[in-house]
């Protein structure tokens, strides 16, 4: 399956169109697999077969690291009644105080990302960090996380991390490195550090910033360069342009009724994106005080007498001989909320070239080329009457809407928001600032704080300068602290070439990667969970990051290296961080409590930056749009700029828009694909400014024409077993003066590259797994969700209900606030020891995720709506899977959970066939890694590691339920609402997933299930799912609707 085997047929878009024109009602279009009927699949079948790699080779399996070929006898571990092998207990010699073996501990820390940091609680089992949760006290998290944070714990245990200091590639040690660097420094110190250059990624750690200050004092000639391939450079530049100083905008979605995004995907990245999603959702969420009553009132038919003698019967679930009424149904709970007439939610307009999760949530999504967003901004600004700005035409439908958008904004002065995308040029940011000012939003929906960036230089310029000096021979010693410039620096600068001219090159990095290969010295960088550090959150709040474990491979931090340059070697990260903060206190008396509380809370009180108020002025001109075909660069949604390339969880996480795993692709619109005569998996060559790269096409409906989007972070040549050999390197055609968009042309090569998508059919067909209505329709008919698929009334079944007298667990998922970000997927994977299976297996349809996010395109092929639906186990009360299991490996619990017992499963897979939701996952091979020692560390000891040949599925995180129940029982009370939170619900940024006890009418979940928008997936099958959904609402602008 390498580039070069047979080309698959191009998509015949015209055929689909023909179909669509014929089809009535809401338009449905077919996906790749069904394009123009079955020929595509026939072809797929035909050329697929010969290409099958021998099962014992799995040549492109991207998870050899995780994979074990042997049919191991470790299987005995999960097969019952075998003689137990000898097992040792190794007690402590001195048991730590207040430590209880078997109880996980949580430590507050933070993960630096996007030039900011998100506050976290890290779970530790017997000293092993196993799981990341959000820190409820941290403003940037409020208890939620993103998928990067969730997956970061796997990086800590990654067997491919660089594990030792190397010198010229040979194993060395820290002492030698210190000696080498110190001597180099001492030499350069004679010329005030002339010729010593330090290249870092965006730094926002006060400690590090302080260290740089000292360095500057001692060695004024030392230059500090900053480069991060997907940094928010344009944001600071834009602020410079508008305000004359690099400030950071902080948005307050909780106050925004109308939001305009100028190609800004603020839900998926940026220092505040998790918090923003929460605030937005709070504005979005609708609770109506009308109670959902799905069942027609009829007399129930008598059921069978059922159930054995009392002592054997499960206490909680008992067959109701006497009383045939159904178990407490949400219908009996009175829904709380506003009256229907007052139901209201915010409205969002998004202008973008490629679908994003923000665009998916938009009430109006306008497709424009990325390079045209500037003109849109101009027109909008003009329409808003910003002085000195002329409207510009893009020639897209968007132009027509601008007036109405402006009108809507003006109608909500002070309660609206205009946001420019992180990858739009500074001018667009400046325009956005001026518009917000014109709309009186400053201080209300947007505040400006001092930049989080300790060194807010123009990173591109800074990089250019460095490269220039290197070529000019002005650099003797280059200190690369973090990052992987050799891979990430745009091709036109030829960083590698320039580097070779530097006498002494030193690299601090987590992996032995492209950069370390070209450096004389390489020092393993400490993971943020294993060292001391500090970082600023999106609003400036500082978190002191504390280690949960000693550095596994003696990794070091940026600070620890800098302190050598500063001339004070042998200071540990702990001393440095503590020292810095001690320095800001007069004496221990007030330091010690401060230190304790700060560490405990995970935030340093009072460090949130105070807003400054400034006046913005519009930029003179904006960069002209790319004439002809544009290629847009974006960081990848799962590996970002490549830093997570060796993270199996993220690699296998379906990318929200494409549901692809393990690869980056070239996104083009159906029309463009038609024009190029290519289809999915066809390889095209992208030529831009004399350079070219080859990548596989993925046709993305709703993408702008004459435009292609390509993702950074792939095509790595080093940096771990999983990182290299997949995708293509987009940096190869990136240039320093056109970082984010460039004019280029695409050419079909005739080759094809196999991609692993987890969802082949991208439409809902004639079915309605997701029920959608506009706010207006909802007000007319709040029960709209139950019309297409009525609930099967209870009286239709022969059997009497089981009554759940104890707890009755249930889940509710609000499709209106689900962003589809996929954090739940990774959170679940981390919590439940879910195996990574690799590209080949994903292609075969064998991915293991317990909760998946279904993504449907709906409506027009060129401008479809985009819907997301998280699907965990439905925990059906009449579970079809249970009926057909021959060995009772899956049965119902007394609390209505659909239990899956791995150690009883023989693997007939009948349950999966009979599961209409297909949420069951099967270990077709030995997917769990039984052999890589370091990966044992990340495992959750409360969940069995599944072996080959057993079925598995979502358990509502039963390990959490049980421990909470045990706590409650010991205290002789019922479990409180909210005491149990499954991993998915806990990680969800918008709290779209809610779990709880349905029997408790006051519980949040019971309340949500009482909402009129509540419906069950495939409820007409009478499976009676415990997981229910709230229908999706949209809030379109009626004027635009008309227009």
């Amino acid at each position, binding site marked *: 399956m390498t580039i070069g085997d047979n080309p698959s047929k191009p998509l015949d878009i015209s055929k689909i169109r023909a179909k669509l024109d014929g089809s009535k009602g809401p338009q449905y279009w077919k996906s790749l697999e069904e394009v123009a009927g079955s020929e595509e699949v026939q072809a797929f079948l035909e050329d697929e077969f010969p290409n099958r790699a021998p099962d014992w080779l799995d040549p492109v399996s991207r998870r050899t690291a995780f994979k074990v070929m042997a049919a191991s006898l470790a299987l005995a*571990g*999960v097969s*019952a*009644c075998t*003689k*137990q092998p*000898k*097992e*040792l*207990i*190794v*007690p*402590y*010699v*001195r*048991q730590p105080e207040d430590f*209880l*073996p*078997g*109880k996980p501990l949580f430590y507050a820390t933070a993960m630096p990302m996007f030039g900011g940091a998100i506050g976290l609680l890290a779970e530790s089992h017997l000293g092993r960090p196993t799981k990341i949760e959000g820190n409820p006290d941290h403003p940037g998290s409020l208890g939620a996380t993103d998928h990067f944070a969730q997956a970061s714990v796997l990086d800590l245990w990654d067997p491919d991390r660089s594990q030792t200091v190397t010198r010229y590639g040979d194993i060395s040690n820290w002492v030698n490195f210190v000696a080498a660097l110190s001597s180099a420094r001492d030499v350069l110190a004679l010329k005030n550090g002339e010729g010593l250059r330090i290249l870092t990624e965006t730094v926002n750690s006060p400690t590090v910033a302080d260290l740089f200050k000292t360095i500057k004092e001692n060695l004024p000639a030392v230059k500090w360069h900053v480069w991060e391939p997907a940094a928010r450079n344009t944001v600071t530049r834009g602020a410079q342009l508008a305000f004359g100083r690099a400030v950071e905008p902080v948005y307050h979605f909780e106050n925004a009724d109308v939001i305009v995004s100028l190609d800004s995907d603020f839900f998926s990245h940026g220092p505040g994106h998790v918090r923003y999603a929460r605030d937005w959702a709070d504005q979005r969420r609708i609770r109506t005080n009308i109670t959902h009553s799905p069942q027609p009132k009829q007399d129930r038919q008598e059921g069978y007498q059922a159930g054995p003698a009392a*002592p*054997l019967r*499960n*206490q*909680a679930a008992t067959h109701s001989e006497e009383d045939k009424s159904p178990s407490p149904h949400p219908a009996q709970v009175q829904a709380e909320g506003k009256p229907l007439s007052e139901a209201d939610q915010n409205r969002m307009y998004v202008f973008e070239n490629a679908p994003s999760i923000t665009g998916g949530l938009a009430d109006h999504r306008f497709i424009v080329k990325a390079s045209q967003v500037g003109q849109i901004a101009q027109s909008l600004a003009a329409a808003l009457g910003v002085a000195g700005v002329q409207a510009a035409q893009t020639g897209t439908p968007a132009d027509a809407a601008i007036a109405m958008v402006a009108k809507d904004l003006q109608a909500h002065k002070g309660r609206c928001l205009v946001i420019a995308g992180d990858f739009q040029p500074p001018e667009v940011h400046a325009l956005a600032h001026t518009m917000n000012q014109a709309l009186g939003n400053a201080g209300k929906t947007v505040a400006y704080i001092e930049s989080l960036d300790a060194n807010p230089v123009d990173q591109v310029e800074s990089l250019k300068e460095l490269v220039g000096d290197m070529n000019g021979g002005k650099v003797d010693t280059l200190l690369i602290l973090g990052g992987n410039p050799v891979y990430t620096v745009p091709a036109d600068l030829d960083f590698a070439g320039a580097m070779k001219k530097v006498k002494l090159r030193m690299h601090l990095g987590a992996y032995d990667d492209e950069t370390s290969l070209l450096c004389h010295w390489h020092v393993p960088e400490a993971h943020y969970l294993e060292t001391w550090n500090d970082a600023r959150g999106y609003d400036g709040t500082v978190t002191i990051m504390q280690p949960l474990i000693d550095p596994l491979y003696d990794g070091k931090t940026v600070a620890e290296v800098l302190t050598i340059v500063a001339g004070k070697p042998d200071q540990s990260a702990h001393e440095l961080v503590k020292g810095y903060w001690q320095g800001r206190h007069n004496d221990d008396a007030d330091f010690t409590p401060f230190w304790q509380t700060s560490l405990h809370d995970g935030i340093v009180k009072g460090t949130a930056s105070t807003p400054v108020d400034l006046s913005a002025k519009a930029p003179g001109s904006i960069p002209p749009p790319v004439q002809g075909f544009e290629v847009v660069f974006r960081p990848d949604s799962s590996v970002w700029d490549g830093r997570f390339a060796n993270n199996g969880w993220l690699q296998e996480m379906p990318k929200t828009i494409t549901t692809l795993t393990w690869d980056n692709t070239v996104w083009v619109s159906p029309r463009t694909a038609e024009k190029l005569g290519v289809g999915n998996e066809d390889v095209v060559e992208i030529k831009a400014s004399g350079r070219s790269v080859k990548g596989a096409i993925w046709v993305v409906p709703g993408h702008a024409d004459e435009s292609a989007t390509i993702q950074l972070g792939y095509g790595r040549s080093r940096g771990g077993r999983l990182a290299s050999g997949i995708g293509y390197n987009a940096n190869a055609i990136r240039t320093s003066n056109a970082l984010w968009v460039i004019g280029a042309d695409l050419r079909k090569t005739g080759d094809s590259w196999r991609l692993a998508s987890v969802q082949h059919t991208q439409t809902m067909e004639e079915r309605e797994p997701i029920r959608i209505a506009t706010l207006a329709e909802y007000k007319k008919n709040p029960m709209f969700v139950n019309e297409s698929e009525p609930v099967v009334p209870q009286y239709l079944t022969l059997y009497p209900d089981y009554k759940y007298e*104890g707890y009755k667990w249930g889940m509710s998922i609000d499709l209106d606030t689900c962003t589809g970000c996929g954090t739940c997927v990774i959170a679940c994977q981390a919590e439940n020891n879910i195996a990574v299976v690799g590209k080949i297996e994903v292609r075969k349809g064998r991915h293991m995720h317990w909760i998946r996010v279904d993504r449907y395109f709906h409506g027009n092929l060129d401008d479809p709506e985009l819907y997301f639906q998280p699907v965990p186990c439905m925990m059906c009360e009449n579970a079809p899977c249970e009926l057909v299991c021959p060995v009772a490996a899956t*049965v119902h*619990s*007394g*609390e209505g*959970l659909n*239990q899956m*017992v*791995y*150690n*009883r499963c023989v693997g007939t897979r009948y349950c999966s066939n009979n599961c209409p939701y297909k949420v069951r996952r099967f270990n077709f091979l030995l997917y769990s890694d039984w052999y890589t020692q370091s990966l044992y560390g990340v495992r959750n000891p*409360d*969940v*069995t*590691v599944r072996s080959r040949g057993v079925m598995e599925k979502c*358990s509502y995180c*039963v*390990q959490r339920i*049980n421990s909470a129940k*045990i706590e409650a*029982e*010991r205290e*002789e009370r019922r479990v409180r609402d909210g005491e149990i939170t499954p991993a998915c619900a806990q990680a969800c940024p918008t709290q779209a997933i809610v779990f709880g006890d349905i029997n408790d009418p006051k519980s949040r979940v019971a309340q949500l299930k009482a909402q009129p928008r509540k419906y069950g997936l495939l409820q007409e099958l009478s499976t009676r799912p415990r997981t229910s959904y709230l229908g999706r609402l949209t809030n379109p602008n009626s004027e635009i609707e008309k227009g």
Partner: protein
Amino acid sequence: MQIFHRSTNTISRVSIFGALFLVGGLIAIAYTLDRGDFSTDVGVVKEQPVPFSHKHHVTDDGIDCRYCHTSVEKTHYAGLPATEICMSCHSQIWTNAAVLEPVRESWRTGQSLEWTRVHDLPEFVYFNHSIHVAKGIGCSTCHGRVDQMALMYKVNTLYMNWCINCHRQPEKYIRPRDQVFNMAYEYPPNQMELGKKLMAEYHVQKLTDCWTCHR
């Protein structure tokens, strides 16, 4: 013409029944082996670094279970004493007894003692001491008269049907909370009604769900 000798009639019949009995017998033997001490380890003493006698420490010295098994009331894991705990006494008494050398060595070197597990559940079984103790299940109910064991062995198979037996009818085995750590506790003749009373009092459920122990 005659092929077989007269005797073959008898032989053939005997052999038929013989075969039946043989098969039956083999199955019976396999069954008993599977249930026997060989595979259950019931009553089998495992080799330990130190010949620790519960009999001596509990009965003679009258040390409470919780003195060493510190977390039995707090977590799923009863807790095995850290060397520290051993040394708290043995730094004063038996300071140079040969049998205790491993303990002292562990204390000196900081290397943990490595005990062999006696009560060993499969990895897919999640047992929680704290809740059982809290609900009035005594140590001796499962571990037997540990106070009379010179060397540790298990008295129950810890097989699933054994667990289920109690989970289905706790009233048979439950005892007052204050008696949980009483090794010599005898069930009263009126256990059945006492058990029912205690179950009500302690809100004991009959948890026979799979996910109670397996996840």
